[in-house]
């Protein structure tokens, strides 16, 4: 554990989460969520959970992003918030 690295990654994670929720375009929100997941994987590796980090990078960032985009194209990108 190196706490400086962790603190920077925490800031990235929180900013990416807020952007993912507050941005008006849903496609931008999904991209921001992918950034969130990748930074989260880095945070897991920094904390020593290497296997969790790998799984989060593959499943959390890759598969979740693809699922979100497929679902958006099956439905609608229009949003009010």
């Amino acid at each position: 554990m190196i706490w400086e690295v962790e603190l920077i990654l925490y800031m990235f994670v929180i900013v990416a989460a807020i952007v993912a929720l507050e941005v008006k375009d849903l496609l931008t929100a999904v991209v921001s969520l992918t950034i969130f997941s990748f930074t989260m994987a880095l945070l897991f590796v920094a904390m020593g959970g290497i296997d969790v980090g790998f799984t989060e990078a593959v499943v959390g960032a890759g598969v979740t992003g693809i699922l979100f985009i497929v679902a958006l194209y099956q439905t609608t990108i229009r949003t009010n918030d």
Partner: protein
Amino acid sequence: MTIWREVKIMYDFLLGHYSYWLTIILLCIGLYGIIFKKNLVKKTIGLTILQASVVLYWVSLGSKWGATVPVLDPAYPASDVANYLNPLPHTLMLTAIVVGVATLGVAFALLIATYNRYKTLDEDEILEQIQ
């Protein structure tokens, strides 16, 4: 003199648990997204953030200062527990991440079914059409 010792203890408590406070902030952001956002995709994004923050809490619970990753190294004897991180939360959260993606797939199936029926993903518009 004694009041300063109290302040020092409080300061150490706040700074020593910084990972927990930031995880709580992340959890609140996810909860805010679930409760206050009207678009169903935005609610799903909030759900993902909430789930990731819970996983983060468990992983931070398993880490400790001055320890290495739980892979056996002859230089660090395994008889001393302080040498290695606790791998139990890691294995549990590995399962939780995969199960979370499966749940997300079900959520998307429900989202697409909802859209095919009501032609919108806005919560208020769906409630209007139901009534």
